[in-house]
């Protein structure tokens, strides 16, 4: 049994080592690949707060990923076309500044999570799963029908947005930015998990009746968790759109929602680095297995099936002997 701390440090070190090695051997594509893994990890860390700690099986979390992506897309589009964004009678200029875009992505995602959460948390169990899935579809179809921003074809952003003091077009610099954000998000997640809020939320997942009879409100705890979760995934969406310099309705797709959950489960539900391990493995599989066969999803399905039936704690569970959180 390997201590979880050690696993975490190894993964952390690996995430730093691989891009540095890529610079040495001059393989910029590898850096892009790792950046992709880091961004998906941020999205999954967000989801893990709702899923792993709160026990909310949100099968529509791509909603927030897409909102973040479109926040970036819309703002950058208006900036690059020198048009103004008319919203509620206000005429806003676009922007290509990452910090502002991130702020907008976070705020709008949090707001959406608040509303969706209020509606969805009136139910529980299977209903909740179905409803979150349905909201995902709603945004997907809405994005397709919204032709102003590309509709089904999506929106291309020609130049990557800017961050003060950096040249974000250089792969390693953009990677560094994303990696720093991942570290911040992981740190906040760790603090949250051990804080009174995390304790109460964790209890709300396992034994909501007890939480009620000590005078706390499980529904409110879960709603706040859902909002935080949505905000983080929204941030990841904005980063993802910047990575690809492209936003499209597929960022809202049910496939992506499913993949986010798959990431976490493969890594280890409720474990701090579960999403990170899962994201790295997923991107690695996508790249290498995908090169071997175009039907690599079959193998992903088989791996997932095996994990669900036989190794419920995911990779971290296998390495450390700890079970995943029971959701």
């Amino acid at each position, binding site marked *: 049994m390997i201590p979880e701390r050690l696993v975490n440090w190894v993964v952390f070190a690996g995430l730093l080592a691989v891009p540095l090695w890529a610079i040495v051997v001059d393989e910029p594509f590898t850096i892009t690949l790792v950046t992709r893994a880091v961004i998906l990890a941020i999205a999954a860390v967000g989801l893990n707060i709702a*899923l792993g700690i709160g026990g909310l*099986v949100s*099968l529509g979390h791509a909603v927030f990923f897409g909102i973040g992506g479109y926040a970036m897309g819309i703002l950058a589009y208006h900036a690059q076309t020198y048009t103004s964004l008319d919203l509620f009678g206000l005429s806003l200029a676009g922007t290509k500044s990452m910090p502002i875009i991130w702020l907008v992505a976070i705020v709008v995602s949090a707001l959406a999570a608040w509303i969706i959460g209020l*509606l*969805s948390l*009136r*139910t529980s*169990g*299977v*209903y909740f*799963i*179905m*409803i979150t*899935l*349905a*909201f995902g*579809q*709603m945004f997907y*179809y*809405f994005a*397709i*029908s*919204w*032709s102003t921003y590309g509709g089904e074809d999506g929106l291309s952003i020609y130049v990557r947005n800017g961050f003060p003091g950096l040249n974000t077009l250089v792969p390693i610099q953009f990677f560094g930015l994303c990696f720093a954000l991942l570290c911040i998000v992981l740190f906040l997640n760790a603090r949250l998990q051990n804080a009174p809020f995390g304790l109460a939320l964790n209890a709300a997942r396992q034994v909501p009746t007890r939480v009620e009879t000590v005078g706390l409100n499980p529904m409110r705890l879960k709603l706040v968790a859902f909002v935080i979760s949505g905000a983080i995934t929204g941030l990841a969406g904005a980063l993802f759109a910047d990575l690809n310099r492209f936003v499209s309705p597929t960022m809202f797709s*049910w496939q992506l929602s*499913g993949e986010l*959950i*798959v990431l976490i*489960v493969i890594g280890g*539900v409720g474990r701090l680095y579960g999403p990170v391990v899962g994201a790295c493995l997923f991107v690695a599989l996508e790249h290498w297995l995908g090169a071997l066969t175009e*039907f*690599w*999803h*079959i193998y*992903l*399905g*088989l791996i*997932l*099936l095996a*994990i*669900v*039936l036989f190794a*419920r704690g995911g990779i971290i569970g296998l390495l450390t002997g700890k079970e995943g959180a*029971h*959701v």
Partner: protein
Amino acid sequence: MSTLLIIEQVLNGLQFGVMLFLMAAGLTLIFGVMGLINLAHGSLYMIGAFAAAAVAGATGSFVLALAAALAVAAIAGALIEMTVIRRLYGKAHLDQVLATFALILIFSEGTRWLFGSFPLFLDIPDYLSGPVTLPGGIQYPLYRLTLIAVGLLVGLGLWALIERTRIGIQIRAGENDREMIAALGVDIRLLYTLVFAIGAALAGLAGALVGAIQSVQVGMGEPVLILAFVVIVIGGIGSIKGAFIGALLVGLTDTLGGIFLPELFKLFMEPGAATQTGSALASMAIYILMSLVLIWRPTGLFGARA
């Protein structure tokens, strides 16, 4: 806005709804009896469509194609149940979601591997094609009318099965108390496999029937699956009646919303913006309906009250 158009759209809505009902009925039955949420239902829809297309292509017979759809989907369902699904009963919903999501991946890619990425075509047979003149002078495609009829017949058949046969009693009892019927000597394993196979057959039939008016391709099942979930949320999990009413509501809302909402907006907006806003809202109409039902009745119209 002619009455003709409205009636035609109402019929379209009914046809859409009735096909959704086939999906939703299977899903809600499986959940009601086995407590299992099944994401792979969309794959069974797809399998039915592909089986029908393959058999129709080989034999030229639509009837054989439908029979194949039913059979292949039912067998596929039974096989999945015995190998994978059986291990999921009683497990957490997350596990069921993940395992059935894994099945989607396997089936979708597997079908793509077998049949390629291009859509297959399933033709409406000659004896069902062409318009039919309804009372009032309305012309409506015969095939779509047939779908409505088939859907209603299936609804009737399901009702008869559940209310009037011994298996139906077992199903109803199973929905209420699983341990009890096992204690009463009912072979639970067989019952569960049967229920799953029935649900699968319904999905496969829907896939085949709809495959003739849309195309048969990988990934066709999941959007319908998610709509079926919306139907169940509106109707109430475990209720076939809820699935029926919910399906009709969803079908009509989607079809009529697409027509009426842009018109509604044209009353106080200029045509261009009205069509844009109207269509965008129409694409969300079903989900708005779902949200409204949830605010009013969190467990659906006919679901068990909390």
